[in-house]
């Protein structure tokens, strides 16, 4: 795990690390990656991943409307909003 990799994953996760902490974080990440890297020694050929402990299938809901919209409460929770919209700094496409 080099500094460039840390920078890339920080970008993807939209996080920035303080300068003084960056070395520490990089070291921590290395330690954890080493821990999870230990799985490589286990033979998993032909083993299906278990993405969820419930080996069942999804319930499908009917196409019937049921609104729990609370527009005012939704907008109230936003740091910036007007009477109709959530607001963010202007985006240039």
């Amino acid at each position, binding site marked *: 795990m080099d500094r460039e990799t840390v920078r890339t994953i920080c970008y993807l996760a939209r996080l920035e690390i303080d300068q003084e902490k960056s070395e520490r974080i990089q070291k921590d990440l290395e330690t954890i990656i080493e821990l999870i890297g230990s799985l490589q020694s286990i033979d998993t050929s032909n083993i299906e991943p278990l993405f969820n402990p419930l080996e069942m299938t*999804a*319930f*499908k809901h009917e*196409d*019937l409307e049921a609104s729990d*919209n609370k527009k005012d409460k939704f907008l109230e929770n936003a740091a*910036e909003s007007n009477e109709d*919209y*959530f607001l963010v700094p202007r*985006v240039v496409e």
Partner: protein
Amino acid sequence: MSWETVIGLETHVQLSTKTKLFSRASTAFGASPNTNVNLIDCGLPGVLPSVNKEAFYKAIRFGMAIGAHINQTSIFDRKNYFYADLPKGYQITQMDLPIVLGGSIEILTNDSAKTINITRAHLEEDAGKSIHDEFDGFSAIDLNRAGTPLLEIVSEPEISSAKEAVAYMKSIHQLVTYLDVSDGNMAQGSLRCDANVSIRKSGDSELGTRTEIKNINSFKFIEKAINFEIKRQIKILESEEKVTQETRLYDSAKDETRPMRSKEFANDYRYFPEPDLLPVVISDQEMQKIKDEFPELPTEKEIRYQEEYGLSLYDAQIIASSKSMADFYESAVASVKNYTLLANWFIGEISAYLNKELIEIHESKLNPENIAMLINRIDDQTISGKIGKSIFEEMCINGSSPDQIIGSKGLKQITDDDSIEKVVDEVIDNNPEQVEGYKSGKEKLFGFFVGQVMKKTQGKANPQTVNKILKEKLTK
């Protein structure tokens, strides 16, 4: 140097379900901002998605219609990226096990047919909408559209011109509307596409560097955007430079494509199976039910129209070309006797009017009952075809019924011989010179007499009777 264009299209079809893909909020278009938003669509902490059954059925119907393989077990994945109108910071989509795999679509350009193979079609949720230019310094987020079910149809890169791309989109439009999978309303964004365009030297086997033009939402813009992009890329290649792989936007006002700023960083979407949703399984019984309830497709309708209503193949094709036209015809034909006359009106007046106005029949003021009434009035000689046309014009403007127009304007055809004979006598008496001319062999003058009679009756005289009586009187 001759160049070859390679185009692949990713078409987003908004499914016409009542509710969203993972919530039961309404998908109705045009609601006031942030009202068609459930807790789930707002991406609030702690909420969980559940799958809309109907979205699956619609996707499967499409898959069956294009002869694709249906994955009866499909899974959802998360596509992770940040964007203001993407509430959860990921989009739920299908990556490894899409609902529809393979299949093909027939397209028609300049009367030659071509088959475009489909790679896959998968279900995914739409994002919300950002409004960038109405609020000073802010972009405004409306999540009404967030979570609306989309079927993303990915074509093989087998399309070789802008015209073919348009034909392909038209085929998809026809199919999804016929299947009742989507309303196909392009102006409202129900059907839109991303075009991957690349250029290579003719004969090369390797593909050139491609650009992706995002979110094109009309047939006209597809053609223009792709043609612009083809020219742009050829110009670059001819000056021995390299095309940059990038995402571009089509600006219809300037008729050009330009790179999209917000996508400048290469992203890594970190797909992984959505842990909040278990695999979705469609049972054999469900598959059978979808098959049993399969709607009639255009070619089936064409055959039926020929058999049931005695239409020509050509007429049947035109009427069956769009779902709304076919629905309209079928609804009108139930109350008329003269099927051919009705068909002629569809091919003639009605099509001409719709083409002129650039609208679909269901967007016009016309309705099947009124058209059937109009045909019946012509058929039973209450009015002439010509009066019929003027009534039709009025129907297009205000949607009134033919009987209303006939009644209020006194347009009922004069069919009794006595009344017409009276007018014919008047015309002959008033125009001795022309009578002389006609009798001396100027047979073209016959039209003049017809015209005069029609003028005096405000066009209401039955033309056949007028002809008959005039002939008798003039040859006396």
